[in-house]
Structure formats: structure tokens, C-alpha cells
């Protein structure tokens, strides 16, 4: 059977990996290629690159870094950030990405998911959602979590699946950067609704958080950034711990 996946996420700004807390207060971490090597060697099942480049002029730095990583790392690569059109899909797929994650781009043009799924296949299209509770309801936020779109997250997830998204990334703004565990309530609500894989993001602080996530059965993969970047937790130790606790891992 297929394993649960551990996915480090690299937020790339102007060619460097950074990590913010609650999307603000950005800190510089390392070169994407160095980190990708480090994660590959320690057993990451997949890598996600988010392009948070501030200006259009610097976008080339991101694709250069991506190309370099794809030349040296042979596990699935997902790219997100600044994906608004089919041309953007083309741009990152040509640099060696295997999957492309859309977020604000799908909010601006909801037909993007369907068009991309038709052209590149469902397995290539990942719908990434930044979700926050507003008046007790799960709401979709855009622009890196700054703007409340008013869209109901459950409806948005279901629409995404129906349009051809092959996976969902559920990023809880409420738990992101706080390191108190994944947002199980939010993940449960979404995974009950869809049959495509759900990737949990936001809130991982220790290995027990991942065990709790997979035991709850509400995600196929766990995604995290800062705990891996700052070496608070090694992927190899995490996977061994999960495997010892009867969660199948690729060791």
C-alpha cells in the first residue's frame, strides 16, 4: 500500500528559501538547492517550492533555482506561487516540476483548474487553500493569507475536486507558524468531503503532531517548513518514529 508522505515546503523569495511566522516576519534560511539536497538525503518523499518572489523581474531567480534542483533531485517536485495562467504551468513544468499548485490564481479564474487538468492531467494540478475561521466557518483567504475572499472553504474544496484537481493542500492560517499541531478539525471536515489526497499544512511543531495527524486518518501527507529548516526535527527521525508507531513510511 502507499505510504503516508512527509513533505518539506520551501518558500523561495528572490532565489533564497525563507520562512515566515503567520505569513509575516520573513527570515532568510538557505539556498534552495542546498536545502533540497539535505531533504532528499534525509528521506523527504516530495518537495514543495512556493515562489513568493516580490517582483516580476526576480521571477527568473526562482526558475533558475528550480531547474537546478530538478537536475539534481529525483523525487516529485511541486511548485506553487504566482501560478495564474496555463503559461505559468508551462513555465514551471519545463523547469522540471511534476505538479503545480494553484491558490490565488484559481480564485481569480476558477476555470484555471479545469483547463490545466485537461491539458496536463489531474495528477499535475494541486489546489492549495489558505483557510481561516471566520464567525465559526472555514473561509478561503488570498494574497498569502491577507484577504478574506468570503468563499466557503468546504465548497471551494469540493469544486476544486470536481474541476479536476488531483490533490488538495489545506493550510490552516489559524495554526500556521504556531507549532501546536495540525488543524485536525479543519482537515477532518475537508477530507470527509473529498476523495482526492489531502496534504495537511500549518502547525507542525513536533513528531507527535504528525502521528496524531495520520492516526486521525484525515490526511495523506504532512507538510511543514520551519521545523525542518531549523533542524528542530529531522525527517529521518520523524519517519522512523512514525514507522515504529505503525504508520507506513518509505524508509
Amino acid at each position: 500500500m502507499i505510504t503516508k508522505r512527509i513533505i518539506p515546503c520551501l518558500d523561495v523569495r528572490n532565489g533564497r528559501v525563507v520562512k515566515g511566522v503567520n505569513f509575516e516576519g520573513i527570515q532568510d534560511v538557505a539556498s534552495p538547492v542546498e536545502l533540497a539536497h539535505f531533504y532528499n538525503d534525509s528521506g523527504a518523499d516530495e518537495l514543495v517550492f512556493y515562489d513568493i518572489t516580490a517582483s516580476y523581474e526576480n521571477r527568473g531567480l526562482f526558475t533558475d533555482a528550480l531547474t537546478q534542483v530538478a537536475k539534481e533531485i529525483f523525487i516529485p517536485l511541486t511548485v506553487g506561487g504566482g501560478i495564474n495562467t496555463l503559461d505559468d504551468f508551462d513555465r514551471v513544468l519545463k523547469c522540471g516540476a511534476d505538479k503545480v499548485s494553484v491558490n490565488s490564481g484559481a480564485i481569480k479564474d476558477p476555470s484555471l483548474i479545469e483547463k490545466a487538468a485537461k491539458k496536463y492531467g489531474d495528477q499535475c494540478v494541486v489546489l492549495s487553500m489558505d483557510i481561516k475561521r471566520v464567525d465559526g466557518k472555514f473561509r478561503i483567504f488570498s494574497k498569502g493569507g491577507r484577504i478574506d475572499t468570503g468563499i466557503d472553504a468546504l465548497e471551494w474544496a469540493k469544486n476544486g475536486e470536481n474541476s479536476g484537481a488531483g490533490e488538495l493542500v489545506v493550510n490552516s492560517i489559524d495554526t500556521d507558524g504556531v507549532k501546536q499541531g495540525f488543524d485536525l478539525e479543519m482537515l477532518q471536515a475537508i477530507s470527509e468531503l473529498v476523495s482526492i489526497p489531502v496534504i495537511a499544512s500549518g502547525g507542525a511543531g513536533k513528531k507527535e503532531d504528525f502521528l496524531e495527524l495520520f492516526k486521525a486518518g484525515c490526511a495523506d501527507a504532512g507538510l511543514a517548513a520551519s521545523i525542518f529548516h531549523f533542524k528542530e526535527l529531522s525527517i529521518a527521525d520523524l519517519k522512523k518514529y512514525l514507522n515504529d508507531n505503525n504508520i507506513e513510511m518509505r524508509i
Partner: protein
Amino acid sequence: MIAIIDYGCGNLFSLSSSLESLGIDCKITSDKAEIENADKIILPGVGAFADAAKKLKDSGLGQLVCDLAATGKPILGICLGMQMLFEKSFEYGAHMGLGLIKGYVGPLEGQISKELKIPHMGWNKLNFAKADPIFKYVEPGDYMYFVHSFYARNCVENTLAFAEYGVAVPAIVKNGNVYGMQFHPEKSGAKGLALLKAFSEI
């Protein structure tokens, strides 16, 4: 030199990069003379069967692969490229494959429990069915990265390794000098590279 056949189906960047990282000489090409002169051939493929089969046929590259298979040249089909090696596919209609390996390609849907998600996507274990030089650098239980919704059927005799996903999914198949891998060795980390290395040495 290994020729990676470019017939407009899928991104070949990772595949050529993975071979280069192993120090294996390779070239992405649709040039018939270059393919004929290669020591080995890889037939990649991502996308829909019907579209890929048509492209192979229209370009004449499908016929070339069959001719070269008959001369004993080692050939490796990957993912959809592996599925193309079979006689037929029932992916949205009925389509002819290259017929280099007996069997057909059918949907996972309806064959596996509804609790299992389709596509079969992620890391799954190889179980060995037969001994083969392709296994030189890997072991049973090594994980490979799969992404597919259709799978090879009626090919037990030609199955070297399978993965469990509600059914036994043929993962590596072989008929003489013709190999197929359902997963992506170029995306399966060090173990995937080990299989490509073994193929290059066959």
C-alpha cells in the same frame, strides 16, 4: 548511448537529468537514425493512451521501436510508455498498443475497493515475482513512486515485480529484451536511479 524517444508526450527533463547524474550518456531525440544507432532505448510517456498511441503511429516511431525490439536492442517503457508496450488499452475506448508484451491495459476503477483513491499515487513497495538482472541494485520492499489510473492485466508470466494496491499491480514487466516500469524510476529517489543503472548495464 541511451536514446530517450521524444514523441511529444511528457516532460523528459527529469529522465535525462537522472541518467546524466548516473554518468550515463543519453539523448532526447525523435531522429530515427539516432534511435537506431543507440545502444538502448527508453520510451517515456505521460498523458492519455489514445493520444500517445496516435503520436507514435503517425511519427513512425512506434514501428521503429517494434523493429528494433526484434533485433534484440534493450528497450524500457516508463509509465504510459510501459503501457504502450502491451497489445491493447481500454483507457476511454479500445486502442491498439505496440504488442511487444502480451496483455492489456485496463482501469483500476471497479477492480479495487472504493476506499482506495484513484489515481494510485505515491510511494509503494516492490514485490519480486521473478529473478532478473534489473534487480541488481534493489531489494524487495524498496519503494517506488507511482502515478497512474490504469494498469496492465493478463500479464502474470511477464511480470517481474508488482505492487499491492487492492490488486497486484504489475510494476516491472519484461518480455526478452523489452522492459516496462509502471512507476517513475526517475522520480523514485536513489532506488529508482538504481533500476535505471541496472537497465543501462543490461
